[in-house]
Every structure is written in C-alpha cells, then in structure tokens.
C-alpha cells in the first residue's frame, strides 16, 4: 500500500498522534486524469484482440474515485470516499468537495478527518501507439488532512480551509480553478495564503496558521510528491 499513497503516509506521519484513529475518516481524491496509460493500453487491446483483451483492471484503474478507494482500503478508513475533478479544475473541486464533506462529518462524526488527495502531472505522459510512455512524466500527489471546526473557534496554530462568497469578477489575489498543483504546493511550503475561485461567486481559501501549513520543509514536500 505504501507505494500507492506516499503523500498520505507522509501527512499522516506529520500529523502525529492526532491522526491515530482513522476509522471514520473520509477520503476525497481530486485527479486531473484517471488512469490514462491503462486506458491507452486497453484501447490498443480492444482493437487488437477484441473484448476478450480488455482487462478488468480498467475498472479500478480508470475510475475517478479509485485513488480515494485505494487509500480507504489501504488504511481502513470507513468514512465516505469520492473522486472529484477529472479536469483542469481538479484542485478547486477537491477543496470545495472536501469542505462540503467536512460540514456533514462535523455533525455525524466530529472526530473524523477528511483526507484530500490532489494529483496532477508536472510533465504529462506522452504515449506511443502501443501505449508505451515516451517521456519522463512526473505525477505529483498532495495529501491534506482536514478536520471540521466543531466549536467554530479557529485554533491559532492550525491552517484553515474556508469557503466564502466573493464577487463575480474575483479578486486580484484569487487564482482561477486551474491553478497548477506544483504552484499550489510551492505556495503551501512557503506558508502563503491561497485563494482559488470555485466558479464565479465562491472561493476556497487556504490560510496558514502559526505553524504555516504544517509541512516540515520543501524537501519533505518533494519527497511526499
């Protein structure tokens, strides 16, 4: 399992004893593209061998929610597991959906966390006609552990994810929903607040606490990626 979700395990380690009980935790996975190499191999197999050549693995490997399910199965998390995004705005959709689930869990499982996993390509894969990669593609993974603010009083040391109304035009410091993941990660490691538009009229803001976003160093970020 470890090789599948290093970003989650890294975040888990950094969260320390706060994250001991994962039983009712939820997982939201926001991916840009789901299982492209497997899909390409499957298309080639369908053409060359017919239906018998289609592997059942295409089901778990090309479904948008599969990363979330893989994490929940691997770490025995029994909260809701969903995939969101599937396009350039995956990050914004992930933040919004995680905040949405947090509202529900604040009532039903106030101790549970929401694990938001965002993945994106630094260098997207290029495949030849046999679906073999022809470039050195890099997929980045980021895991954020979110807990509902049950009392409504922010903890000074904790980073905050907020969803707020905003003007339709957005604001100068607001990124659009297709902010690249690498840039988002850089801002997190620098401890900078980041506001991302979720459609017009709504924005997701990640605001650092006294300890920034809780990431040790940029090096551990890269290690986790």
């Amino acid at each position, binding site marked *: 399992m470890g090789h599948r979700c290093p970003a989650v395990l890294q975040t888990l380690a950094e969260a320390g004893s706060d994250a001991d009980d994962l039983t009712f935790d*939820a*997982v939201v996975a926001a991916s*840009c*593209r*789901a299982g*492209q190499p497997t*899909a*390409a191999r*499957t*298309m080639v197999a*369908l*053409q060359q061998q*017919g*239906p*018998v050549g289609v*592997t*059942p693995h*295409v*089901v*778990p490997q*090309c*479904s*948008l*929610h*599969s990363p979330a*399910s*893989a994490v*929940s*199965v691997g*770490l025995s*998390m*029994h909260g*809701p*597991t*969903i*995939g*969101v*995004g*599937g*396009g350039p705005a995956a990050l914004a959709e992930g933040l*919004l*959906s995680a905040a*949405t*689930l947090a*509202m*529900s869990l604040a*009532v*039903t499982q106030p101790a549970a966390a929401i694990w938001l996993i965002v993945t994106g390509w630094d260098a*997207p894969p290029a*495949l*030849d*006609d046999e*679906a073999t990669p022809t470039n050195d593609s890099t997929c980045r993974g980021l895991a954020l552990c979110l807990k509902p603010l049950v009392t409504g009083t922010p903890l000074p040391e904790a980073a905050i994810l907020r*969803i707020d*109304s905003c003007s*339709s035009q957005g604001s100068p410091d607001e990124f659009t929903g297709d902010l690249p993941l690498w840039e988002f990660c850089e801002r997190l490691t620098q401890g900078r607040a980041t506001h991302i538009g979720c*459609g*017009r*009229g*709504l924005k997701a803001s990640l605001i650092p606490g006294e300890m920034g976003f809780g990431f040790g160093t940029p090096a551990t970020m890269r290690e986790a990626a």
Partner: protein
Amino acid sequence: MAASTPAVVVTGIGAATPLGNSFGSIADALADGRSGVGRYDAGTYGRPQEHPAAAVADIPSPPASVVCLPPGDFGRRSRLEQLALGPAAWAIHDAGLELGGQQAPPPDRIGVIAGIGAEQLKDWERDYLDGGHDVFGPANRPTLVQRLAATLGIGGPSTTVAAACASSGFALALARSWLTAGWVDACLVGGCDVLSPTALAAFHNLRALSRREQHPQQASRPFDRDRDGFVMGEGGVFFMLERRADADRRGARCYGELAGVGMSGDASHMVTPCSNPTEAARAIAAALADAGLTAETIDYINAHAAGTPVGDAAEAAAIGAALGPAAERIPVSSTKSMSGHLISAASAFEAVACLAAIGRGFLPPTINLDEPDEACQLVHVPHAAITARVDIAASNSFGFGGANLCLVLKRAA
C-alpha cells in the same frame, strides 16, 4: 443535518433513460413493471459483442426555452454529453426556472454537480474508435460538467463526483449541503453514464454481468435465487434542487424533499462487493438519523440490489441490521430489474423511482423475482407494482470500492 437546517426539495426533473424520458413516463413504466432491457451489440472493429443491456432509445434535445443550440450541434456532441445536457436542460425547464429571469437565482448562485464515474475513459474510447489519438496525448480539456455549465449559462460552483455506482447519489448529497450552507440558491444535480464496449467487456471479463444473452428481459433478477450478475444500462437523470422556502416563494412544484443522507465506506476491496453488511447498515442508519426519522416511519426502500450474488445478500443483511424489527414490514424492491444498472446515473434514477412511489402512490416491483433467495430475507414486491401510500422512501446505493450511500426522500409537506 441539524434540525434547524433548511429543507431542500426537488423542483425539476429531466431524464433520458431506458424506461422513459420524463418523470411521468418513468413512473408509468415502473408502475407497469416494464423492462427496458434488450439485446445490445457493442461490437467494435467488426467483432460482435452482444450483451443484455438497457439502452436509451432517444435522447431528448434540450428545450429551446432553456438553451438555443445551433442546428445539428446537439447531435454532434458525444452520447455521454447528450445524456447530460438533454436531461439537465429539461430539469431546468421542468422547474419553471427561466435562467436570467426575475424569479430565478442569478447564474452565479446556481451550482452544477454531476455524478460521472469514468468520463475520460468514455471520451478517450469514443475518440479512439473514431480514429483519434487523444488517449496517447497530454490534452486536458474542460470536463463535461464545466462544458455543461458553460452551455447552460450557469456560473456558480461546479464539480464532477465519482463513487462508482453511487456517484449521482453522492452528487445529490453534496448539492444538498451546498444549499443548506447557503453557497448556492439552486443546484442542478444528477448523473449520467453510457454503454461502452470497454466497460461492457471489462465487467463481463470480471464476471460481474449476467450471461443470459438469449433472454435479456429476464437477465436482471435482483434477490432471485438464479441471479447471475447485473445488466448494464445507460442514461442521464438530473434534478433541480432548491431550498423549500425559495421554492415556495416562487410557487414551484415540489416532487419531494431530500430529507436525509447517510454515507460510509467498506474499505474492503477495490472491485468485489463487501459481504460484511456493517458499513452499508451504518449508511442507512445515518440517513435516517440525518432525516430525524426512525425505521418505523419508512414506507418503502429502493434497494441498490443489482443482481450480483454477493451484493444482494449483503444488502438484505444490511437492511435488517440497520432497521431491526421494522425491516420485517417495510417493502423493498430493486428497480434495476426493469431499468438495468445505470451505473453513475443509478442513484439519481432510483431517486426518481422513490419520488414516483411518493407522488403516484405505488410500490415499484422487482420483476423477474421468481424465487427469492433465502439469503435475501426481505418484504419483496415481486413481479407487479402494489398500490400503497408512500410518504417516506429510502434509496440505497453501493459502489465498488466500498462507497455506500443512502438517501431519504419525503413527501413535501
């Protein structure tokens, strides 16, 4: 959901399904116990690939009052996009919302959420079968949901949600939360899925599909002793959801209230249904608690039951575990026996079935239920619909990967 949170109601429905393209036609088909399953050839490259499946005969074009497309535009879009755009536009029309009009919320206050499990796989497949090479390249175009919002002129938050067979149910859950949080004033929400050679082959090779190719209308037989897998279907179902007070203010019709949602995860296996009913039962119990209801008040349960040997028995156990003695009197049926399994759109379709039961006063049947499996001890509704008053209905959806969801729908008071 806390008691003080506003009620959320369904004010519009649009559909393109194997059983009809409107609330009325779907309700009629369910009341008649009609099957939408037939023989379906998904063959590619000159090779036949026949399965029992439930296809949509005609996908309705969007009404011009909602969106005016250039001639031929709708037909040029992918089948998956048609199954989203047609029903979504009809849901807006059915809700009586004139986008941009005085009674409608501003476009930036309307959200869009669609349950779609594997949109890109379907897009890549279509392109590849047409001779394209998108699947080999880095293209990252806007999602169907983003294109849908742009086409309809909706500017609020939007997202695609995937949870396999529970995708559109989770979409409904998120939409309800957006409305109760005040993030949007109306939300267009639903799901769509399309029959595809790859998906049919993958599930066939997984041995998850029924092999009754010679008798397709008998192939989908949830809870029956001789069930041998599910029958894949396709369709699109969309709703307009609004807060009750807003709907009342503009005099909108209410099909029913989305009164409760329960969610959990099996954390068991990526594909195989979980035989342990614990987490599915927790989702059902959570939905009732969220709605502020007890098991005794439930009048009808629309089961997820797709006709798989393990899944149906596990669901029967989960219903018993969640509802206790009340399960011995609550009628349960699986409308997948008629509609097939609409995968990403299944939860949304089955919410329509619950609203039909509430609005028309009947219990939809499980057709093909000739000999109930002893492992599925429930109060079945075999073969034919039964006239009954239904005020509160629960609908289960369990997706592979362990995504469990239960919706509670209630007659709007």
